[in-house]
């Protein structure tokens, strides 16, 4: 039984490493901040900001990949200047994520990419619902087989070749 628990320990450790790497990747590359957080604590480098494109503020030429708009959060609004690929999902009153850099001198957020709002809870739930029961069933089946082998060997029924 020791070897059985050791094998499962290794699987558990590797699974925990993958979970840890995924959480770190989410925090570094996918987590977004609100417009208020940008204004309160101006960041350096690339940042993802989540907000609502305010009605009546969208201007520019979307077909050429240029637009300016106001991105509203709960407490603050950010002026955004977008330059990039022609966006398909940019319209007023739409919740989205803008990726780019904050320019403190001009107080404008210079975005180069627009991303869809993602409900990460669905992704996490799907992986937990899909994989956890499989691992649990496998663990308990493997454990039962080991116990049955022990019981049968003790009862001298199993004939080794």
């Amino acid at each position, binding site marked *: 039984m020791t070897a059985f628990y050791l094998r499962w320990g290794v699987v558990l450790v590797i699974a925990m490493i*993958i979970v840890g790497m*995924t959480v770190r*990747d989410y925090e570094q590359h996918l987590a977004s901040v609100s417009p208020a957080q940008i204004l309160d604590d101006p960041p350096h480098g690339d940042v993802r900001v989540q907000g609502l494109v305010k009605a009546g503020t969208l201007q520019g030429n979307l077909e050429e990949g240029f637009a300016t708009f106001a991105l509203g959060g709960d407490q603050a609004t950010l002026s955004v200047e977008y330059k990039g690929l022609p966006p398909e999902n940019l319209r007023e009153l739409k919740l989205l994520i803008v990726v780019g850099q904050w320019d403190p001198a001009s107080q404008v957020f210079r975005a180069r990419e627009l991303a869809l709002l*993602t409900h990460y809870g669905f992704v996490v739930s799907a992986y937990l619902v*899909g994989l956890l029961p499989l691992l649990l*069933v496998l663990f308990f089946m493997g454990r039962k087989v080991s116990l049955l082998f022990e019981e049968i060997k003790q009862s001298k029924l199993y004939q080794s*070749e």
Partner: protein
Amino acid sequence: MNKTMINRVIRKIQRYKGWFGGAAALCMMAGLYVGLLASPPDYYQGEVARIMYVHVPLAHTSLLAYTVLFGGSIWYLWKRDPLVDNMCHAAAGLTALFTLLALLTGMIWGKPTWNAWWTWDARLTSFIVLLLITIGYLMLRTFIDDPEREARYAAVLAIVGFVDLPIVHFSVEWWRTLHQPQSISMRGVSISSGLLIPLMLMSVGMSLLFSYMLMVRTQMLYLVNLLDAKKGRLLSQFHLSKAES
């Protein structure tokens, strides 16, 4: 099949199942790493599309599991081998598990993309019919006392139930459905390599995991039967000796 032969099969499973388990773990770890960390998000669905790497392999494996049950049932009716019956019983339990998980992960994917947990779409409906057939198979096995009759009737039900598999597979082509058509078919591959690699890794890993689980479960059912037989023999010996005294 005599007892020594069965012992040999069980010992072979015991010897080789570790390779399947190890290969499944490697493929799935690699698939999870690439799928969650290295692959790009989908252009239209964004990060939610990563659910595909767990939902699609589960669905494929549930169809594979039922195909094994179907093949095993034909084999059982032909050879009447109790070990094959154990394998069919094991495959049915695993089909139910994989089908249920595929349905649940599909529901979780459906909510952010279709804005509905469930819809009576042809693919979803035929898939839930598969789950009901498998549950029916498992229930049938608990209702009949005679093991030989139980195995025979269950095999016939599994063969009849196989008619649902082509319906599941072709439902997205035969009917207009919300469910997207197959990304990999005879007509070609309509998915980018960045998404295809983790999908293939997870699909192969899940199939290997199913093979491993099938071996463990077959072994488990066989050992339970063996122990029951031993206990039954001991009990009859006890009654016999009591009657003689």
